[in-house]
């Protein structure tokens, strides 16, 4: 069991009041709060070791380089990457996906090829592929969902075929909370000769990640959804792909020799890290990984599952509330979307905000999904290891007053 009191005390942001009420932070799928271990690691780096890595031989530059590479080693171990060469630091998941789309996609996808994504993709794993498809004359195709918000595997087998050049898919949907049977789908895509790009932005904070077991060709995530600062993300890519891919951004750090007319590029992963990197971000990410490892996945998963189970039960009891997503605990993570009849999600979030509750309203950067489900928007709560059942009670209590505020009798 998690010692939730201790855990909460390690997150300074959780101790504050919002609108006169203790903060109930239920927007973890958007971004997580940071524990003191991470805050201190970042501060320590800035106060004592701030230097430009890879660019000088003085003490601070060497230190910064070491810390950056130490963070890379931690990330590699965390996702079970076979080597640090395959771990590229980016700004966030979005940049990592753009890197793959522009560098791999534009150089490998041909006219007539097909790119397959799921209808629930976040815009960051959708718009870049739309662009690549448009530029290369390829077709963007979608995997659709069943009534239970799961991928329709039978249909998927028709959509993923020998024309599929790339399959890009999230392990867990940020709008629905569904965890897809990703290994099955990856296997299937590989058998058809497709390259597989996996968006782990939502899964990485909740599920143990093993890029080798997943057999991902590319895998991306963002640090800020994993207790690290904003502005640091990760692209894992198999060396066999990365080594032949053209650089994404050009500049310092990513080069070997530069003459007036020609440049040879640095080795992996530096070829994809142009410019001064976000060392404090990487240090923070390393510290966040240490923090998670110390607690251990077993406890985290158990706690988050019990929160999800409790929330699904309690939310189902709220009148006029409809959960948009799978009710099967085995097929979902701690992200729950819902609608409340007659109430717009934006009004709901304003009303519960007055009770100190942070939840998300809108299309969750998944407009094609919303269109497909014929919903203009939903409300979403998302839990992290520091949330409690008491917070879910506060949420449910607050939600049950929303219709009253909006002028309904009950």
């Amino acid at each position, binding site marked *: 069991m998690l010692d939730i009191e201790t855990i909460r005390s390690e997150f300074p942001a959780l101790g504050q009041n919002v609108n006169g009420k203790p903060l109930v932070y239920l927007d973890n799928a958007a971004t997580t709060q940071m524990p003191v271990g991470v805050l201190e690691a970042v501060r320590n780096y800035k106060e004592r070791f701030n230097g430009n890595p890879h660019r000088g031989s003085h003490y601070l530059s060497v230190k910064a380089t070491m810390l950056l590479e130490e963070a890379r080693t931690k990330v590699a171990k965390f996702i079970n990457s076979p080597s640090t060469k395959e771990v590229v630091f980016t700004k966030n998941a979005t940049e990592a996906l753009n890197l793959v789309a522009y560098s791999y996609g534009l150089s490998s996808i041909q006219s007539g090829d097909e790119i397959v994504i799921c209808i629930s993709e976040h815009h960051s794993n959708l718009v870049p592929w739309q662009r690549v498809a448009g530029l290369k004359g390829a077709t963007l195709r979608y995997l659709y969902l069943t009534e239970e918000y799961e991928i329709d595997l039978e249909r998927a087998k028709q959509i993923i075929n020998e024309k599929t050049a790339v399959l890009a898919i999230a392990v867990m949907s940020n709008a629905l909370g569904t965890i897809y049977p990703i290994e099955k789908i990856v296997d299937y895509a590989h058998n058809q000769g497709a390259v597989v790009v996996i968006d782990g932005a939502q899964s990485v904070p909740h599920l143990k990640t093993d890029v080798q077991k997943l057999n991902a060709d590319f895998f991306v995530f963002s640090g800020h959804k994993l207790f690290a600062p904003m502005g640091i993300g990760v692209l894992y890519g198999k060396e066999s792909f990365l080594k032949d891919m053209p650089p994404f951004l050009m500049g310092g750090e990513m080069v070997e020799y530069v003459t007036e007319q020609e440049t040879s590029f640095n080795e992996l992963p530096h070829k994809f890290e142009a410019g001064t990197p976000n060392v404090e971000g990487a240090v923070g990410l390393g510290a966040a990984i240490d923090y998670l490892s110390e607690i251990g996945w077993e406890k985290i998963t158990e706690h988050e599952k019990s929160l999800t189970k409790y929330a699904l039960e309690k939310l189902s009891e709220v009148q006029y509330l409809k959960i948009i997503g799978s009710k099967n605990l085995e097929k979902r993570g701690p992200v729950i979307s819902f609608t409340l009849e007659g109430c717009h999600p934006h*009004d709901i979030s*304003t009303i519960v905000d007055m009770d100190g509750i942070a939840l998300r309203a*809108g299309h969750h950067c998944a407009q094609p999904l919303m269109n497909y489900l014929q919903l203009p928007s939903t409300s979403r709560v998302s839990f992290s290891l520091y949330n409690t059942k008491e917070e879910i009670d506060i949420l449910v209590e607050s939600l049950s007053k929303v219709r009253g505020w909006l002028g309904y009798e009950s």
Partner: protein
Amino acid sequence: MSLSSLYTELILEHSRNCENKRNLECATCTKRGYNPSCGDDITIELMMEEGKVIDAAFSGDGCAISQASTSMMIDLIKGRTSEEVQKLVQIFLGMIKKEIEKEEDLDLLEEAIAFQNISNMPARVKCAVLAWHTLIQAIEELNPQS
């Protein structure tokens, strides 16, 4: 800003107003406004004749604030010339930014004065101004020279 001063009876009533939420049969001008942050999506239809708003209506979907603001705006502009409409929009947007000092100017907004304090709720300002921005765009498209 408290919830009771935001979700007033007047605003709630307008947010469910069906009279202004319809399609115009002979609209001379249609403009869609979208608020990507929260998904408010409205389409304003105007029937103009000799520079005057003969009829106006809206359709779409959005939060109570965006819907009420649109409905109040539609009540306000019917029968006005496009110059008058433009002036009213400027006053409304000015009011939101707390730039309008004269009471008489605010009074011109009639019920829409209900949004006077929305700037105390920054997350909702976009909802309140969406219709008004959309209307200005519609009018500008009608009179490109002005």
